[in-house]
């Protein structure tokens, strides 16, 4: 198979991309989809299991009503229709981490259908149509021990943790996204980001892509430019950050174009995405004829949410994202461009939370969009996954406002937070970052600076206030940068008046 990558711009000269995104979201319900086991993350392996989620003979499922409620709320927030009557179905296939060797899912009767989500890329709006969202259960988690790749082939043995088996999942599937052209990678990222923001607002999931509570499969195909057809697709599985979604689309476009340019055919398969290189590699062959022998789950009765309940849930939905964005832009006094950047960076909720903790909108934006965005970029992670919380940002800003910290010292506090050195106050203590505001201590340093640079002092006495900079620098150096520069200047000018 040819692995010639065609430069992105050249891809677009000859081909139209089509994308399909399948996003799995783990719900944050207290209990699992079909049993009463805790659905929390990180327990001792195989400690949160029972006959039902282990698939023991004779066990039976019972639907988690809270998960159904979450599914409906997600559907409504995605402008979807809620089925009046739908069923679960069995998806049959063998895998060691599948307790029953079938996944209880939904097939041709999803709870949500025909939705859409408008996303914005560089000021342009794209409507992403959502075909369906359905409920299902997660599988166990397999860890392959030994072997070079960490995959099942070549492993010495494998360990299975069934704590994850039965965690409620919602799978949200788009219709083919056409016409995005050069912006396809950004549209894909913007869609997942917007979806993430909505789910966060609904409070139905932790949506931590890094922890797998939100996982994205990226389907991509290319068709000859203007042909209006759909090419053969590949499905890149488990793309686990917003940035990776964009990169996966971009890479697959270049790779597909290389194969098509060489006159070869795209092999329909799943692909693995590699975070380190931004490339994909072949997974398993996947044909449309994969036969999961779906049939309605006979152990469950149909789910038939009453229209009254659906309307109650609709009435209690949080503010729509677009409305919220417009409202906050006014409240915060941001420019159109500032707001667009905030949105694109996925910082809206972060800034909102920071403001809620008492910071001003301007300072919150400054920290998240400058200092912290830079750090996130350096680390190749999303802002929300950086590890600094809105509460911490607000706390640091409060200290700046109180002149306990300068902006420069505040940046060092963030450095400490990112390095995991403890809480804000612990870092200030450990690093000795508090501003020296005691005039007595500062006075001594100022006197010392004046004494050591008599020529400069003379210039200032002569009315040249600009010369104070040299003395301020000396004082700052002597205090290890902890002095308030403004106050130092005042003291110097007072003493040399």
């Amino acid at each position: 198979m040819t692995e010639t990558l065609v430069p992105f711009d050249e891809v677009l000269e000859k081909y139209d991309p089509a994308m399909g995104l399948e996003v799995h979201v783990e719900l944050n319900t207290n209990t699992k989809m079909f049993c009463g086991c805790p659905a929390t993350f990180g327990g001792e392996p195989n400690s949160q299991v029972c006959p039902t989620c282990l698939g023991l003979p004779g066990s039976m499922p019972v639907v988690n009503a809270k998960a159904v409620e979450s599914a409906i709320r997600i559907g409504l927030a995605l402008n979807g229709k809620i089925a009046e009557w739908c069923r679960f179905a069995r998806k049959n296939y063998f895998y060691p981490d599948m307790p029953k060797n079938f996944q209880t899912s939904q097939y041709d009767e999803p709870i949500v259908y025909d939705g859409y989500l408008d996303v914005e890329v560089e000021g342009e709006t794209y409507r992403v149509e959502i075909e369906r969202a359905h409920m299902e259960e997660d599988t166990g988690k397999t860890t392959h021990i030994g072997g070079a790749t960490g995959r099942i082939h070549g492993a010495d043995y494998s360990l299975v943790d069934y704590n994850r088996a039965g965690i409620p999942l919602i799978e949200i599937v788009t219709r083919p996204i056409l016409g995005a052209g050069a912006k396809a990678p950004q549209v894909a990222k913007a869609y997942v980001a917007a979806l993430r923001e909505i789910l966060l607002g609904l409070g139905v999931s932790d949506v931590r892509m890094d922890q797998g509570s939100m996982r994205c499969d990226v389907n991509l195909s290319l068709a000859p430019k203007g042909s209006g057809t759909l090419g053969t697709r590949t499905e890149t599985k488990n793309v686990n950050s917003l940035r990776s979604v964009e990169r996966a689309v971009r890479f697959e476009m270049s790779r597909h174009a290389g194969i098509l340019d060489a006159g070869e055919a795209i092999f329909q398969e799943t692909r693995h995405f590699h975070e380190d290189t931004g490339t994909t590699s072949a997974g398993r062959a996947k044909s449309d004829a994969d036969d999961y022998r779906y049939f309605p789950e006979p152990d469950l009765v149909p789910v038939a949410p009453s229209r009254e309940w659906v309307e109650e849930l609709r009435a209690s939905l949080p503010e729509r994202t677009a409305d919220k964005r417009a409202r906050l832009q006014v409240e915060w006094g941001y420019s159109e461009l500032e707001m667009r950047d905030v949105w694109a960076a996925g910082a809206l909720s972060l800034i909102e939370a920071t403001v809620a903790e008492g910071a001003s909108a301007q300072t919150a934006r400054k920290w998240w969009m400058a200092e912290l965005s830079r750090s996130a970029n350096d680390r190749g992670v999303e802002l929300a996954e950086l590890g600094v919380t809105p509460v911490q940002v607000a706390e640091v800003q409060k200290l700046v406002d109180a002149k306990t910290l300068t902006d420069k010292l505040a940046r060092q506090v963030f450095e400490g937070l990112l390095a995991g050195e403890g809480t804000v106050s612990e870092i200030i203590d450990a690093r000795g970052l508090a501003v020296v505001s005691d005039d007595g201590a500062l006075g001594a340093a100022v006197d010392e600076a004046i004494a050591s640079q008599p020529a400069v002092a003379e210039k200032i006495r002569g009315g040249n206030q600009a010369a104070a900079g040299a003395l301020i620098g000396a004082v700052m150096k002597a205090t290890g940068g902890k002095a308030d520069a403004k106050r130092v200047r005042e003291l110097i000018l007072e003493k040399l008046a």
Partner: protein
Amino acid sequence: MSDLILKSAAELADSLAAGETTSVELTQVHLDRIAAVDGDVHAFLHIDAEGALSQAAASDARRANGDALHALDGVPIAVKDVLTTIGLPTTCGSKMLEGWVPPYDATVVKKIKDAGLPILGKTNMDEFAMGSSTEHSAYGPTRNPWKLDRIPGGSGGGSAAAVAAYEAPLALGTDTGGSIRQPGAVTGTVGVKPTYGSVSRYGLVALANSLDQVGPVTRTVLDSALLHELIGGHDPLDSTSTTTPVTGLVDAARAGATGDLKGLKVGVIKELAGEGWAPDVMRKFNESVDLLTKLGADVVEVSTPSFEHAMAAYYLILPAECSSNLAKFDAMRYGLRVTPDGSPSAEDVMKASRDAGFGDEVKRRIILGTYALSSGYYDAYYGQAQKIRTLIIEDFKEAFEQVDVLVSPTSPSTAFPLGAKLDDPLAMYMQDLATIPANLAGTPGISIPAGVSDVDGLPVGVQLLAPVLEDARLYRVGAALEGAIGPVLSIDKLEVAR
């Protein structure tokens, strides 16, 4: 042998209440009977003498304090090996589950434990309840206590034979296409398939989830009513369980015992007669119909034209569901594991284990079901079968607009010799011709002994069918007919006599 074993469960309950006997004594005499005859009958796969006696002692202690939990507290029972039991093996008659001890009780098992019934042991069955003769058990067949070279029916041959041989006064069975009623018919015992959803299936190792139902296996109609009321009712662990309370069955059985059926309309199912139905069975059946008339019932013939497709629909729906149910037996977490030589993959281990663990009939149905669900065939097979199912439900509905209960022979023949149909699956499947429609429609049914054949002296069963949730009608009519027919089973008629 103690004459205590000849008593019905209701009589034993009365003796316990009157202080004439103790649960320990009752349990011991049944364990003695098991020890004496089960070598011949092989009704049990596991006998729990120690557990049963300790539950019996606890029951006696409660009763001495006036704290009896239920009328049947202290009356021992046998449980089909397809129901999970804490601390007792549950094999489903399969090598696949040899040695598996479940960590949880089926809801019905919990209910009988909570009512204080000592569990004598687990009874034999066709592997995963697939069969009509108990010959498909991986642990060897059960024999009919009437004549040891005959089959006891299936899949619940163990429960029926245990009750017929006086090894237990009560047993639990499960009925997917007749597995309680057909064994009842060929062993001269009473068996009931309750309305689908009225008895919890939680802890019943599923054969076909949409057809399975747990029910009583007893020697009298009243005993079935007592056990049925005990195990019935809503279970939050079973989503398909109905919320209608299961009551009035014992009252119905007592009312029926007065023998008055005036005003009752009975329909004889036209389609369940004729070719394929043994003449001696039909003669006994017609006697029962005459008795119903004598008891005051108005008997008419009704037609249920879709019943002729019931067998075909059943053998698509059942294999489809069971092919998926049995996928969980993959040697990963429990049950048999066979590891091929070399460095086998997980898939190799699954294949080898499933090949070694499942018998031929199980494999046959897994293959049938996998095929029926395959893409491209689904609509033609599974889809069509579901349509037939709807037609059968409509047939029942129309019939019950004309009559209160339907009546038919339970099984087309008396007990056949062991091995006679083993090489002919279709002939074996025909055993359930009359019982399958009730499973497809979810309606309740009872089989009671109609007498013995004038050809081979073996028991014949008569089946009564009622509308969904009208199980009480079966008990009223069943008890009346039982009284008119008179005793069919007696220990002296058995090859395993006193």
